[in-house]
């Protein structure tokens, strides 16, 4: 396998270079602003976080190159194993995971080094879905086929929610949805699924949020919860998620501080490392270089910097869609759509949260936020997209040919 890789190293010439350049730029920006956001920290290890991020970046680049050289079509052979392995890790983390902030998300590897199986499972599930939906003779209009697809998504979803890691788990849904949409699952099925999902969410939210507003007594509220099959602590979590004003000193505080940071950046920013909002004075160490990295960039580089970062993400995403369009086969196309959907969801939700449009959910920003597991997932995914791109070169001609031939 390794030999194959090096044989194909010439393929790199066909890489989508603008996308690769955007990825590299974003990674560098990430390191720089992790340095900035941790600059005022009292603790040496936190101040040196940017060095660790460089290490993760290098690991990410290796994944990126390896996956782009690896012929994505071979993924179909190992997709099931990848999927099973990630499910095993998800189960394992529930039992032996390290508990941080009340959630078991981390598997300790060595010392303080750990991985988040939920991050890896996003990619393996995505690959599994692409392989499933591109099998020859797949009948996507049949309920049975759609049922299998749903099962593939729901198993990791439930395990991730169990950790609990609501943000990461929920990303799986739009990703699967986008892939099914592009693969051509009939609109009526997609419509039904969307409606069913929406109904379920509304039912749960309604059961949690409505009775109190309608003035139902505490006993009645509990009874309604039981009816829907929820426990009291579910209610507390859902409330905290959708009504951050109920937690004005925790989530509400972070939201307001982040908004002020972004807003005070102005059109051109305050200059690198000059953010007076002093993120660390206000935001917990755990989120300034991770979930709130964008507000540091927005404060110090202003509207200009925020839009540049957004533009770079745009290049990556539009480049990914372009690859999906020129892809040689459906599997390649679906892989691209899946990766693009995943990165898009992260970017959109994170930035919307930073400027106060969405409640604080705790999703990292790809390539910019500090973190190893997510860096590996993102870079591997982007590597797969590159692989699709590099292996699709002849497609453009063949497509034209096939049209002429009247297939």
């Amino acid at each position, binding site marked *: 396998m390794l030999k194959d890789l090096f044989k194909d190293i010439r393929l790199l010439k066909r890489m989508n270079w603008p996308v690769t350049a955007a990825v590299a730029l974003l990674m560098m920006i990430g390191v720089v602003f992790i340095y900035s956001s941790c600059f005022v920290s009292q*603790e040496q290890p936190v101040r040196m976080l940017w060095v660790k991020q460089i290490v993760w970046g290098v690991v990410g680049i290796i994944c990126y190159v390896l996956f782009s050289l690896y012929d994505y079509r071979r993924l179909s052979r190992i997709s099931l194993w990848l999927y099973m392995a990630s499910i095993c890790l998800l189960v394992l983390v529930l039992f032996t995971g390290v508990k941080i902030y009340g959630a078991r998300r981390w598997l300790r590897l060595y010392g303080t080094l750990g991985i988040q199986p939920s991050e890896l499972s996003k990619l393996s599930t995505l690959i599994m879905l692409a392989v499933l939906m591109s099998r020859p003779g797949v009948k996507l209009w049949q309920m049975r086929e759609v049922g299998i697809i749903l099962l593939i998504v729901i198993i990791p979803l439930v395990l991730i929610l169990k950790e609990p890691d609501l943000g990461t788990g929920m990303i799986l849904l739009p990703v699967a949805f986008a892939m099914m949409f592009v693969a051509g699952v009939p609109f009526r099925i997609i419509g039904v699924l969307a409606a069913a999902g929406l109904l379920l969410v509304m039912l749960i939210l309604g059961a949690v949020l409505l009775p109190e507003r309608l003035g139902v007594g505490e006993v009645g509220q509990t009874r309604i919860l039981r009816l829907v099959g929820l426990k009291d602590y579910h209610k507390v979590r859902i409330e905290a998620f959708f009504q951050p004003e*109920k937690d004005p000193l925790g989530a*509400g505080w972070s939201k*307001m501080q982040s908004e002020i940071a972004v807003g*005070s950046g102005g059109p051109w920013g305050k200059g690198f490392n000059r953010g007076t909002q002093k993120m660390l004075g206000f935001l917990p*160490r755990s989120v300034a270089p991770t979930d709130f990295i964008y507000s540091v960039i927005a404060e110090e580089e202003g509207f200009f910097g925020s839009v540049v970062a957004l533009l770079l993400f745009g290049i990556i995403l539009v480049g990914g869609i372009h690859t999906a*369009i020129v892809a040689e086969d459906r599997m390649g196309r679906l892989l691209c759509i899946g990766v693009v959907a995943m990165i*898009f969801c992260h970017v959109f939700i994170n930035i*919307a949260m930073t400027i106060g449009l969405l409640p604080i959910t705790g999703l990292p920003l790809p390539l910019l936020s500090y973190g190893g597991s997510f860096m590996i997932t993102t870079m591997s995914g982007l590597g797969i997209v590159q692989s699709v791109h590099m292996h699709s070169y002849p497609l453009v001609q063949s497509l034209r040919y096939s*049209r002429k031939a009247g297939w």
Partner: protein
Amino acid sequence: MTLSTDLEGELLRARIVSVVIVTAFLFLVAALWRVQVRDVSAYRSNVEKQSIRRVRLPGTRGMILDRNGVCLADNRPSYCIAIYMEELWQAGPLKNTIKEIERIIDSLSGILDLEKVVSRDDIINHLNRRRSLPFLAWSDVDDGVIARWAESGVNLPGVDIYVEPVRMYPQGELAGHVLGYVARAELDKSIEESYDFYLPEVAGAYGLEMALNDLLKGVPGGRLMRVNVIGLKHKDEGTLLPASGTDVVLTLDSRIQQLVEDALAGQKGACVVIDPRNGDILSMASSPSFDSNSFMPTLSRSEWERLSTAEDKPLFNRAIAGVYPPGSVFKPVVAIASLENKVASENTSFNCVGFFQLGDVRFHCWRTRGHGIIGLKKALEQSCNSYFCQLGLLCGYDRIFNMARALGFGWKTGIELEGESDGLLPDGEWNRRNIGVGWRKGDTCNVSIGQGALAATPLQMAVFAATIANGGYLYRPRLLARKVNRGTQGLKENREGHERRRMYGMSEGDLVRAMEWSRETVRIVKEGMYDVIQADNGTGKRAHVSGLEMGGKTGTSQYGLLSEGKKHGWMIVFAPFDEPRYAIAMVIEDAVSGGVTVAPRIKTLMEGILEIENTGIN
């Protein structure tokens, strides 16, 4: 569906996805434009002129009331001068910020005429570990300071008055051991805590304050407000209301508690009064005691030294953790074991010659000239050691052990308080492990007269007395009568509601075990205990209260080396004899004897209780 239309469709849908993405990004750019370009002046001024202050709203701790609604633990407001460090944040290294904070504190010190009490280390510590919380530069300042504050109209950034509830115990020393005390919980050292606004309030550190902490504790809330440079508040951004802790009503009767503490005053000892009808603890005292108030707001080091190292151990709750050999008070157990197993009857008699000889060991009776031939009831009344040595041997240790075990000797009673002792009920296994020999007849004799390794807590003895008093129902002793949730019902209303129900023995107890003793057994033992107090030369006659019939048993147990002759005095009592409402166990350390030292105190106590009953509500 042909392949090409399939492909066309896929490509079209992929383009749709790309349109969605681009649209979403344009939306984000527009939102950023709004925040960063259009409204920038608003946000800029936010940073320069205002900051957002998180004000802590403390959750008050629940009150502790006695069964009649008398308040035993309450809260009072305490005024503190708070510094909001986040608002004093200075650019550059941390020492700039520290310098600024010190400058503010120094000028406050001048304005308010207060001596500086916090050190630079305190400031650094707070900055590193509790940054988001107000730093209390002065705690519990007096009215004069508050007046000076108001007069001068303090004009400094990041400073405010902060009101904190402080625990107080209106009855002073009363029931100190039961109530316990609270202390500020020390922080977990993990770094993340410094950003967590929801730190716990003071937490119970001893007694019921600790045992019922989850009930009593309040949950602090907070308020988010915008303040300008000089600390003027001008906008509320959100409030999380604090939650008060639950009030608890105890089974204690503070009047009886006072009587009991008076009875123990100046002595080392303990006393427990239980309602035998349901296990309610009407009073529990350990002497010497302490004033729970002395722990608030903080206990001075010297006071702590004194309390924790004093020889008479005032912080030690003898009532539940003190283990004493019970001495003769244990004899009814032997009598019951023998009667229930039909080994002996009321008429079983033994000869007492002043001692009982077993091999070369001699067990002395307190009456050196002997009791002669006496029966069971008389032996109880006279507390004859020779008799019970012989009865114990006749009965066999297994039966005594089983009966004692069933009566709760050797294990915890399960009262709400922590730190309860098991006591010790030895057996062959214990002997082998600790002395290296198996069970011997001499051990049976020793335990039969309440000596040897046998040891019990005053609470266990009170439960034992209550079980005899009610004819064989072992209730778990309890201190917590009810919880009163302040949120759902007004406290006043509740107190009134309780007014109607405060008759003793009304609520059902937690029955641990029904002993199923025969009526005959109960009658014989109770009559023997009746004579102890009511008979003219009963060992407990000094406890006799005119107009009240009681049953009881005295005990004098030796401890330490025999040559030193150190003795604990014991007495258990139940009253009134026919329908007992009180079961009492009292122990006095280093007493002359149970009959001489303890009985008169029981008498005073019972007379006081009678007076309460007559003037009071029952």
